[in-house]
């Protein structure tokens, strides 16, 4: 039985630890796999998954040939060909997606291309939960391990991002891994010292956020150094170990970074400088924040904090912030000078997590960076937030134990009861917004409705919707459906066809320019400056379907040419009348298309593409 008493009973046993770990981590993997179909594709999936496949192909060929003594793949041209799609970001996340694609699609054939590649990201997410569980349990105690790992699984936005074929969850995992190995290397086997250095390189080769982990690590080692001065042998780390760690990170990280990103194997300096330059001058991306659109200049420093404040389940957020504040007590100079009461590992790691949480969000908030995409850019902060939440949750239970006069029976049920009460609102909120979890906003914001009214983005990431797929698959009355999208056709015309390749969306839905389309799908994304004009225009057409989340419209399907149904019915009557025993073949679609081109004297393909792009943003003159 789960016990209220910290560290006693079932939870203190090795079996309890293993079973709970297996249940949470295995359950998380099972849930992620089961929900992969429901989490819509995003513009990043369309971009990074093919890049990952390309890179994995390269690695597979290069390694196979290298074993045969042929190193011809380390070649300027071959590298350039294999990194055509994407070489702005390092390769770990993409290679992982490519690897799971090779295993689950090409070798085993269990999943289609997209889902197989997305499994790579899900594995990163599962690794995160494992680390949270283990660090929470072993540093703070079982209650923290269980609370923090469940709280992370129940972060709706992180749950969605755990499926997206992109770098954010991957860098969350590799960033957290640095801290995880840093913790394990304190007194553990020397291999953890090596792994800390290696993992720093792996994290650098995942995304640009990761190298900033060096700041909290250096502070932590300085902190430990000071403890050695005071406590000598009984300090948690020896100075020798600290120096080995510094040496490990200093010597191993860069070679690992270099090895994992073949793009840098040729023209190393130029390409590395190009990488740095690109991120120093990253182009702006639209963000709606408190009713105002930001692009250039970028959103203000407080936007990431406010977005976190409204997009994290309220109780989890409150506990996380409480844990953060409690952890900061350790920064009191009087404490740092003498560490009264001896070494307190809980307190030390709470401070380390708090510093990490602040750095993960701070590197997005404070420099003059583009801020966009809800909370995706500072995903690495959330594991630390839930760990701090677990720390505060544990302290709360201890305080409750001190002040309440519970009987034995009450003590036994207090922990599970508190766990359920604290996490149930997050679970309910997640279920109510499911499967469009990017629309989730917390209770403080008044949910999706309140936050939308507040002027926050109800959707972003050019996300595809499961309801959209289902909607078209149900519409048997229409054939050869031509659709266009506003305000961002440019992205949707690339992502929705993936569903056709996966046989999830009927094949006769195709996109074109608005003037040639029967239907217009308007996503209600107010961050697009033209959205009010577009809504003004298209609301004059017949509304066929509006998909709402908790009463908030996400997209509307407009019928631009309802008269075509009448014509079709009329034509059908004529056809029936004209048949009189003989079969009248309708004009083939291509013939009709050719005729319309002839009438309009336009070039079909090129014009369609250019028109589509022009519709996505401000009109572009030559």
């Amino acid at each position, binding site marked *: 039985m789960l016990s209220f008493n910290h560290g006693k009973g079932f939870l203190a046993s090795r079996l309890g630890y293993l079973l709970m770990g297996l249940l949470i981590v295995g359950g998380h993997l099972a849930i992620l796999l089961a929900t992969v179909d429901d989490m819509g594709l995003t513009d990043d999936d369309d971009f990074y998954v093919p890049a990952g496949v390309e890179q994995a192909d390269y690695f597979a060929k290069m390694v196979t040939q290298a074993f045969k003594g042929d190193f011809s793949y380390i070649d300027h041209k071959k590298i350039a060909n294999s990194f055509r799609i994407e070489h702005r970001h390092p390769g770990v996340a993409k290679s992982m997606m490519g690897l799971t694609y090779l295993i689950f699609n090409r070798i085993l054939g269990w999943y289609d291309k997209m889902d197989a590649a997305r499994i790579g990201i899900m594995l990163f997410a599962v690794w995160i939960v494992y680390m949270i569980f283990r660090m929470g349990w072993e540093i703070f105690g079982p209650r923290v391990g269980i609370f923090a790992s469940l709280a992370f699984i129940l972060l709706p936005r992180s749950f969605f991002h755990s499926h997206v074929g992109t770098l954010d969850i991957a860098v969350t995992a590799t960033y957290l891994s640095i801290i995880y190995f840093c913790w394990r290397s304190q007194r553990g086997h020397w291999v953890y010292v090596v792994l800390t250095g290696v993992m720093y390189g792996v994290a650098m080769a995942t995304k640009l956020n990761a190298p900033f982990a060096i700041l909290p690590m250096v502070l932590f080692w300085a902190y430990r150094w000071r403890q050695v001065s005071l406590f000598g042998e009984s300090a948690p780390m020896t100075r020798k170990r600290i120096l080995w760690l510094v040496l490990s990170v200093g010597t191993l990280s860069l070679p690992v970074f270099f090895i994992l990103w073949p793009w840098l194997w040729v023209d190393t300096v130029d390409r590395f400088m190009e990488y740095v330059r690109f991120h120093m001058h990253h182009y702006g991306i639209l963000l709606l924040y408190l009713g105002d659109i930001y692009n250039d200049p970028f959103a203000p420093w407080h936007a990431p904090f406010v977005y976190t404040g409204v997009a994290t389940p*309220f109780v989890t957020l409150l506990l996380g912030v409480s844990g953060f504040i409690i952890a900061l007590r350790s920064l009191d100079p009087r404490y740092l000078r003498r560490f009264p009461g001896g070494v307190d590992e809980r307190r030390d790691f709470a401070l380390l997590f708090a510093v990490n949480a602040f750095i993960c969000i701070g590197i997005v908030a404070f420099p003059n960076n583009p801020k966009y995409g809800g909370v995706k850019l500072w995903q690495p902060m959330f594991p630390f937030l839930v760990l701090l939440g677990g720390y505060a949750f544990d302290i709360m239970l201890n305080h409750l134990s001190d002040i309440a006069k519970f009987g034995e029976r009450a003590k036994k049920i207090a922990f599970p009861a508190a766990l359920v009460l604290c996490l149930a609102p997050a679970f309910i909120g997640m279920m109510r917004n499911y499967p469009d979890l990017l629309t989730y906003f917390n209770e403080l914001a008044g949910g999706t409705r309140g936050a939308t009214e507040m002027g926050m983005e109800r959707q972003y990431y050019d996300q595809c919707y499961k309801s959209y797929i289902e909607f078209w698959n149900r519409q048997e009355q229409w054939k050869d459906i031509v659709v266009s999208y506003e305000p961002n056709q440019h992205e949707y015309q690339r992502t929705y066809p993936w569903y056709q390749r996966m046989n999830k969306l009927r094949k006769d839905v195709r996109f074109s320019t608005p003037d040639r389309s029967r239907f217009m799908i308007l996503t209600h994304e107010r961050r697009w*400056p033209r959205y009010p004009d577009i809504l003004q225009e298209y*609301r004059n057409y017949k509304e066929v379907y509006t998909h709402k989340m908790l009463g908030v419209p996400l997209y509307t399907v407009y019928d631009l040419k309802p008269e075509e149904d009448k014509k079709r019915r009329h034509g059908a009557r004529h056809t029936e009348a004209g048949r009189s025993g003989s079969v009248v073949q309708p004009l083939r679609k291509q013939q009709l298309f050719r005729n319309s081109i002839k009438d309009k004297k336009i070039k079909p393909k090129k014009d369609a593409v250019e028109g589509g792009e022009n519709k996505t943003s401000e*009109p572009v003159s030559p």
Partner: protein
Amino acid sequence: MKYKYILPVIVAAAVIFAFVRVLQPVPEPVSAETWDAVEKIMASEAWASEPVIVHPVWEHSAFQRFKNHTLSMGKPTSQGVYAYPRVWMVIARGAGNTSYLKKTHKLTFDRQVGEVRLQRWEKPEVKNLVYDFFSNVRQAKVRLFDNKDKVRACNSYRNLHWVCPIRDWNKVGQSTVQVAGEWQSAIWQHPLAKWTTEARFDDVPMDDFIKGQYALADAAIEKLPKGSKVSFRVLINDKVVGDFSSVNKKGWKDFRIDTSEYKGSRATVLFQTATARDAMRHFCWRASVMSDEKGAVAAKPEQAEENRDAPTEQEAR
């Protein structure tokens, strides 16, 4: 001991609050009767094309309403809406922070209609407004002509624009552009090389002067800082009354044209744009016919003409 109460009490309160909020049911949409009543009042009180701001932003039942007006769901993201002399606001369920209008407008009408609150906000200079070209761009006739008198009509009205036949960015209509870093509503009139793009407004009630602004969108200046000048001409009854040129500098340029000689009459007003090289010439403008007289009764834009003599109800709160 006392401080030990703090965290459990805060968390317990947060859990109760979270349960209450997360279990809130989805509200019913505003009823059709209420919308009908609001539209009836608007028909007698409002001018066509005047913006209507609806709060809350997600009130889907408003999408099919106010077809003669510019609908803005929630706080307008374009600063251009604040340039309108009169703005209407519908507030359902008590939602909406309307304080943003207080900076530029004054509340002059406030009435509870069914489940919603209907408000009108006016700028102090509204009494001097006679005719707004931006609001009436749908009534414009747009064409291209060259110096050999070859003419091409731009008579396809799509997506709030009159689209010309040669290039799809060569069009005239209501657009949202970034000028001096702010998103603004204005009339987009991108010129086409070798042609003059002309927007013609017939039967415009004239008064003391026309005032307006023109600019190149920020993107045009950033991407092509040495692009060609855009010639912007204003004609009344085919007589040139204003001849301006764009400069490659961000921000609006104001203009004011004395029209006192036409006061009291109705005239044809033409706005023409032309350029030598049309790359990135994202030109836009906005203008109104204004009266000097304070308290002059404004001539309403076209579609509300029949309501011109209707009594104006000023129910200032």
